[in-house]
């Protein structure tokens, strides 16, 4: 029996498959389809200090083997989360992470400290890479100085596992990852969406209300894989890989490239049971290759 468990710098996962924020709701939306607790962890949707209505409709464009979204962090705010949603999540016997976002450092800090008080939340994913908000979001994640500043600020008030989610829309994601590490991050997750655009040629109008949005799906996998490989060989903290993982083979590729765990995002929209299939597929791969544990697979790329 192969060992699928992963120790993510103190955060213990029963297997390396988690769900990407904004693609898995609060988990219970998938209770009809899978046993959510069988996953390594779930990362619930972006939460901000104050409630946010998000961007205007339309927010979606389909692209070649991908999609662009511009939700804009719609959520009911951290108070509502703590009061009304958190109690529904304590039933899960797996890691429930909260994706924390905001516009100002103070917002982030206040939101994170509130989440810090929730016993059943062992970690947060700090979102400094959302491309769909006017202020904050990606602005922090595209600058190493700003990245280290905000991560340090969160580190002071957040005392559990601090995962920082990075944007791919940068010249050197390695520099950003090092800044997050220097700021005290326990791990980094990458990639968030690529800034893209879709046009309705016949109407000569943007397809989505914000003109540009975040691209995800199978199309972005080669870029995500490259960045995971670069970052995992440049920082000491573990890397969580995501970006276009549609099946178990994709997930295995990210682990081989150096990711210690993966997040499955857009694929949940196409098959709500895909996450458990990916867990099974990773197990099958390890058995087929006579590996005893997933740790043998992580960072196993042979480049001579």
């Amino acid at each position, binding site marked *: 029996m192969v060992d699928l468990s992963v120790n993510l710098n103190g955060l213990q996962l029963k297997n390396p498959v988690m769900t990407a924020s904004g693609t898995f709701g609060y988990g219970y939306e998938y209770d009809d389809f899978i046993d959510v607790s069988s996953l390594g962890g779930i990362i619930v949707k972006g939460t901000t200090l104050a409630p946010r209505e998000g961007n205007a409709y339309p*927010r*979606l464009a389909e692209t070649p083997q991908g999609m662009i979204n511009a939700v804009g962090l719609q959520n009911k705010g951290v108070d509502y989360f703590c009061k009304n949603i958190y109690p529904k999540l304590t039933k899960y016997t797996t890691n429930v992470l909260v994706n924390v976002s905001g516009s100002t450092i103070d917002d982030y800090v206040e939101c994170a400290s509130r989440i810090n008080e929730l016993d059943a939340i062992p970690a947060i994913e700090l979102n400094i890479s959302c491309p769909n908000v006017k202020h904050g979001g990606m602005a922090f994640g595209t600058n190493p100085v700003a990245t280290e500043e905000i991560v340090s600020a969160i580190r002071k008030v957040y005392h559990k596992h601090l995962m920082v989610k990075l944007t791919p829309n940068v010249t050197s994601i390695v520099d950003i990852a090092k800044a997050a590490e220097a700021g005290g991050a326990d791990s980094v997750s990458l990639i968030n969406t690529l800034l893209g655009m879709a046009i309705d040629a016949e109407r000569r109008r943007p397809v989505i209300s914000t003109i540009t949005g975040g691209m995800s799906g199978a199309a972005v996998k080669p870029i995500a894989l490259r960045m995971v490989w670069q970052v995992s060989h440049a920082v000491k903290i573990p890397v969580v890989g995501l970006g276009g993982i549609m099946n178990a083979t994709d997930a295995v590729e990210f682990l081989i490239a150096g990711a210690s765990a993966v997040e499955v995002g857009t694929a949940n*929209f196409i098959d*709500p049971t895909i996450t458990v299939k990916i867990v099974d597929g990773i197990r099958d791969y390890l058995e087929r290759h006579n590996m005893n544990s997933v740790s043998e697979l992580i960072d196993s790329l042979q480049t001579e």
Partner: protein
Amino acid sequence: MLKRFTTDFTVVAAEMIDCEYVLLTLKHPEQLPEINAGQFVEVKLPDSATSFLRRPISIHDVNRDNQTLQLLIRVVGNGTKLLSLLTIGDKLNLVYPLGNGFSLDKAGNRPLLVGGGVGVAPMLYLGKRLVEMGAQPEFLFGARNKSGLLRLAEFEKIAKVNITTEDGSVGTKGFVTNHSAIESNIANYSSLLVCGPMPMMKAVAAKAKAAGVRCEVSLENKMACGIGVCLCCVTETKEGHKCVCSQGPVFEINELKW
């Protein structure tokens, strides 16, 4: 909310209508679960370079004895084109039943079911359910012309069908709002249950408001997940953005900012 499933159905019939619509009859491997009128399915498209996401399609009819459900689809883009190429024996994976459907309990004794174009799709199962419940529904369908009137024979088996066509080739000339059912007799109906193009639904909703008749509309926004997690298909309501997929697709018009 009804339990949702992801199931491989088998195509047992695929009928093109006027080269513009396709009627798919899909068989469930076992017993169909409970399905509400006005709910929809998310269809996994056949493998294709140009289509990535599932397509939301409203449920046209449900036949428990045959373990089949029917989808009435207008072929408009890449995705629906692929669905129109399906043939008997093909497998089709559905995530279903999705959304909340129409409020049968609030429809009253004499509901008017208003459909425009392919918006008539959910009205067949809806009409059957209402009749089962002892109500006396009536249909009011609008189309561009005669050939735009879909599945008329099926609807007529259930209840009276009032018709308007823009070119006057059948029924009253004009839009559904020009029909006497709405223009003069709207107050005689216990409720209006509407599905069709946005301008048509807004026009009907305005008439319903003016007459003080309960009115529900079924919205059709672009969506990815169908289960309320991607938050792409939102519509503005008096309580803020709501997901058409999971909090709709049917809304009572006073919830909306219309």
